[in-house]
């Protein structure tokens, strides 16, 4: 007995002490990983899987790429898909052209040193972001309504009465109107991000610029704006992902068929209509999953392109 103890003691003393397994890393990560997998990863996997099956006579059969073939080959499906994609791209374009410059402009104005009531302006501009999409859609539908709304009267008062049209009911204007409403609602977050980025510019840099004689707009364009590009990049990619996933505003304002005549149909509403059905159309989970897969791939592709080509090249200044 004591022999074995002595025998075992010496080899153990000769080997270096083994590092204990660091269980605490797994334990601390576990809740987040489990929750994220259960809520995001597993449903995503299940959806991607559904896209490869087909329902034939109430039975689910493996269909390989047949559903994708239908989406791109069949005239009607193809039309709706490309229509939704183009509408979505236009929707995103409105956000980029209007929201980002406006956010930068408002942030620049708000960060002026002696602006009175800046806290009030900040709150007022940020308020729409806190509203639910349902309320925003409902209120704007009412404001723009040709029957009950204040828009015709306001435009008349400004002498622009001839510009009024039932925007949400006309194919040419509906998507633009909804894009503008969405920009109005979403402006808050980019503005706050830009504002914080501007506040983070150290005073020494501004002072040095002023010593060199660069003030006002030139200072903004040459000093502040280049320091903002990383934030603009973040805002762009977040807006892209949010727009291509968006659904609420169009659904509450225009209904599930994204009228008039599918002119406001975006990928989100197309997915909802296909997957869950609408009015008298039965839901088709398989074609719906195909659309969801395409949305996933499109967003993934663009984000990867952005990260590889743009994000890496953005110059970040460290102070």
């Amino acid at each position, binding site marked *: 007995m004591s022999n074995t103890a002595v025998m075992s003691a010496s080899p153990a003393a000769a080997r270096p002490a083994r590092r204990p397994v660091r269980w605490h890393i797994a334990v601390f990560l576990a809740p987040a990983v489990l929750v994220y997998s259960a809520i995001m990863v597993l449903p995503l996997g299940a959806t991607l899987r559904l896209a490869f099956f087909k329902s034939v006579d*109430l039975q689910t059969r493996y269909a390989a790429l047949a559903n994708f073939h239908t989406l791109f080959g069949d005239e*009607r499906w193809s039309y709706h898909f490309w229509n939704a994609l183009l509408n979505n791209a236009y929707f995103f374009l409105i956000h980029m052209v209007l929201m980002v410059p406006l956010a930068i402009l408002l942030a620049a104005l708000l960060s002026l040193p002696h602006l009175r009531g800046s806290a009030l302006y900040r709150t007022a501009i940020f308020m729409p972001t806190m509203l639910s999409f349902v309320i925003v859609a409902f209120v704007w*539908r009412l404001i*723009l*309504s*040709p*029957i*009950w709304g204040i828009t015709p009267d306001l435009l008349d008062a400004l002498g622009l009465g001839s510009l009024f*049209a*039932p*925007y*949400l*009911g*006309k*194919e040419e204007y509906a998507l633009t109107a909804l894009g503008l409403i969405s920009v109005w609602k979403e402006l808050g977050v980019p503005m706050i991000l830009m504002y914080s980025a501007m506040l983070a510019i150290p005073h020494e840099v501004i002072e040095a610029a002023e010593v060199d004689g660069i003030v006002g707009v030139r200072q903004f364009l040459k000093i502040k704006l280049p320091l903002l590009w990383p934030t603009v990049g973040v805002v762009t990619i977040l807006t892209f992902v949010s727009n291509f996933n968006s659904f609420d505003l169009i659904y509450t304002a*225009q*209904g*599930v*068929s994204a*009228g*008039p*005549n*599918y002119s406001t149909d975006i990928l989100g509403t197309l997915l909802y209509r296909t997957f*869950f*059905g*609408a*009015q*008298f*159309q*039965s*839901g*088709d989970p398989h074609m719906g999953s195909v659309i969801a897969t395409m949305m996933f791939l499109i967003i993934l592709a663009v984000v990867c392109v952005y990260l590889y080509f743009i994000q890496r090249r953005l110059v970040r200044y460290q102070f």
Partner: protein
Amino acid sequence: MKKNLAFAVIATLLAGIGAARAAPVVLTIESWRNDDLSIWRDKIIPAFEKAHPNIKVRFAPTAPAEYNAVINSKLDAGTAGDLIACRPFDVPLRHFEKKQILSVNDIKGMDNFTATAKTAWSTDDGKTTFCVPVAAVIHGFMYNKDAFAKLGITPPTTVDQFFAVLDKIKKDGKYVPLDIGTKDAWEASQLAYQNIAPAYYKGEAGRKALIAGSAKLTDAQFVEPMRTIARWKPYLVDGYQAQTYPDSQNIFTLGRAAIYPAGSWEIAGFAKQARFKIGAFPPPVVKAGDKCYINDHPDIGLGVNARTKNLAQAKLFLEFVASPQFATLYTNAVPGFFSLQKTVVNVQDPLAREYAGWRANCDSTPRLTHQIVSRGTPNLEDDLWIKAAGVMNGTITPPAAMGQLQKGLDSWYKPAK
């Protein structure tokens, strides 16, 4: 301390079990008739609960535009209520084929209904019925009697007279001649096109021909009504493209419009809200002396969820629905919904009685697109919504619209030759 706690827990458990056993069964009814909520709660359900004290019934409606999608999801997920309000024809047929609703052949009182009444809720061979028919609705035009009296107009009977009346109202300028919007799209299909079209395609003759494949939507009898509703444009509210269904209802009940294309389901709500007398006239005929046709559509049935936990109680409620007592109660509590039972019900509401009176002179036909031709993708009814709204907006011509509809139908519908 621990003993007291133990006693407390056991006592609560026993009380709970006792309460559970004595708790009444609660049946939930899914429906799209959110406008009828108070009627069900105050008149219909108490009548049933008086006869069955152990059963409580809850009427839980969803917004009409969302109902189909919502009930499809709920039935697929197994979270639907015990009793399901059935749309007519193909939608519940699909649910029955997926075994989500049960057959009601064994409900006592099913022979109170005619075979025609049951067609909307039976399988194609007619052998199995899966929803108890509740009510039909009739489509027509309601008008503001005060406005007509003030302008010296009588209800029109022919299409030419109809447009003459509209012209007169428009010239006067005080009232909106015709109150219908296109934003929600379904009114363009059901209150506009399918309201007046039976007069052109001669009711059941045209509808059955379309289903049989011997008539096409591009035929003149189907294109003409589209041309007629395209002529409605100048008589609508300025900005009607953004006018929703509640907007249309409100414009009429506020007294701002003269004529409102209306289904009889509006009667109950309008009686409460309008401060003026409402009259009604059937869809105008093409030529004077033609036979008139009305869109008399079996609208609501009630089926039972296959996954209900309260099957016996649900069947008791369905027996109540199939009883003559329910027929009288429903037709008079919800005026505008006409019972489909064989028992003749004395309709008390004068406007409802006027609508029902058209059945005597005019041939009835259900809506054109609901039987068989909306089973596939794209289904004809949804397509018709978009195209009819487009015609009324002026963004598509009637022949082009009907051509696209027929093309969509042909892509999946092969009528049995």
